[in-house]
């Protein structure tokens, strides 16, 4: 009986591994089909501008709003939690800056964008698949993966670093705004001193590099789930959810790996 149970578990693990490897293989093949020179550069650039606007510029307001509020909340919470005469006041500004630069503006912002942009990419490509628009492209002799996915990937990899820089700026502005309010124990002067204290320029580059990797993860994984949809509207919805979940997991995994490589 015990042996049978052990065998069932082994079978289940084999099934899961098999499916995971199959998915990985499909993803690699899709990327191989996608990352090639475009058939027509003029069409590629036209699509690229469209994607930068749709995926990037349209996300500007959500990035600004979230960054300002989170920057404010980080500053307030730090000031409330280090209410000690032994810790200097400028630590609030210093810590807010480090959190915003190192983790919030790149990783957390990209997790939020994985929800917004990732679901958009997966549902758009998935709908094109189930309504035979992708088949129509293939019949014309167009490399559909290259035409549809590459501009999204390049567009996102170009514009997400811009969003990250804007997020850093507005996040810190939110912190400064908090320092001007009474009752938090901060002074604007000490906060600004903390912002400039022991500044490491590399942290900004570290965040930008991370965001480019995240942009690749979001666009390629979401495109993979959309491109391989089979069925109807319900399956497009499922693919969209799976795309967001898988992108988020991969972003967190990449965060750990890159932090280990770049900061230690």
């Amino acid at each position, binding site marked *: 009986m015990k042996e049978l149970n052990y065998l069932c578990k082994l079978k289940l693990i084999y099934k899961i591994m098999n499916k995971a490897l199959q998915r990985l293989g499909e993803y690699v093949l899709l990327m191989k089909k996608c990352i090639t020179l475009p058939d027509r550069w003029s069409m590629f650039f036209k699509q690229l501008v469209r994607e930068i606007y749709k995926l990037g510029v349209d996300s500007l307001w959500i990035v600004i709003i979230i960054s300002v509020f989170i920057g404010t909340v980080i500053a307030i919470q730090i000031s409330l939690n280090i209410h000690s005469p032994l810790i200097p006041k400028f630590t609030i500004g210093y810590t807010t800056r480090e959190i915003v630069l190192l983790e919030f503006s790149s990783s957390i912002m990209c997790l939020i964008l994985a929800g917004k942009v990732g679901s958009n990419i997966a549902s758009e490509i998935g709908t094109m698949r189930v309504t035979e628009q992708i088949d*129509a492209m293939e*019949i014309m002799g167009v490399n559909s993966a290259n035409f549809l996915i590459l501009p999204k990937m390049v567009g996102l990899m170009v514009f997400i670093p811009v969003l990250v820089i804007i997020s850093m700026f507005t996040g810190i502005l939110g912190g400064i705004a908090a320092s001007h309010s009474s009752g938090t124990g901060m002074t604007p002067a000490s906060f600004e001193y903390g912002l400039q204290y022991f500044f490491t320029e590399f942290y900004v580059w570290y965040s930008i590099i991370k965001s480019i990797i995240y942009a690749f993860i979001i666009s390629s994984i979401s495109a993979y789930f959309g491109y391989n949809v089979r069925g109807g509207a319900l399956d497009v919805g499922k693919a969209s959810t799976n795309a967001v979940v898988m992108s988020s997991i991969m972003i967190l995994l990449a965060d750990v790996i890159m932090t280990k490589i770049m900061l230690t």
Partner: protein
Amino acid sequence: MVEIKHIYKSFEGRIVLNDINAIFESGKTNLIIGRSGSGKTVLIKDIIGLLRPDKGEILYDGRDLTSMDKHELNMLRREMGMLFQGSALFDSMTVLENVTFPLDMFSMQSSKERLKRAQFCLDRVNLSEAGNLYPSEISGGMMKRAAIARAIALNPKYLFCDEPNSGLDPKTALLIDDLIHDITKEYNMTTIINTHDMNSVMNIGENIIFIKEGVKEWQGNKDEVITSNNQALNDFIFASDLFRKVKEVEENELLGGKS
């Protein structure tokens, strides 16, 4: 001309196409008919190269699609036009942009010439007024016409239509049939239409292939389809009351004429 020889296709051990042979001549509207699930769509997907047959040859004027590499297949596909069941117009583009798309991708003409050609194709399908509208803003019949305009933009030698009349009212369906038929004659194309619409069969069926459970049961034209003695074909065609009555009237007229 498209010729298919000994086509076999199966999915997970289930045989879907079993030794299909046929010749589809140019300048004619060739119809593939059969019940839902008979293998029509799989056959047309095999012919256009969206699926690979397990065995057999698909010859486009002597060029075998099954032995082509990716580049050769892409070059051949530029000679094909396809009208999908749901039209498959690109949602993010206007009707005019949809028709211009294949020209933008493959034509060496200037942008002015490409636009002129797209306008000509839209005029040909009587859709010149809808160029600036998006697919979501036009009717099903207009979508089919726009898809036909896109399919003929590159002057294809081969035109494929998958259920071109599905979801259309009988009058619009006849208009679409006539349009496909006229374009076939005009450009001397090899047109292959996948349908189970008997009105289409009687209207434009110059060469008809009937498929039942993956096997070619019968081949003939629209005049022969009514008088055929093939039991499976008769079961399919005369499932409709209308066609059964037409046959009865014809038989009565024939008996009356004899007496």
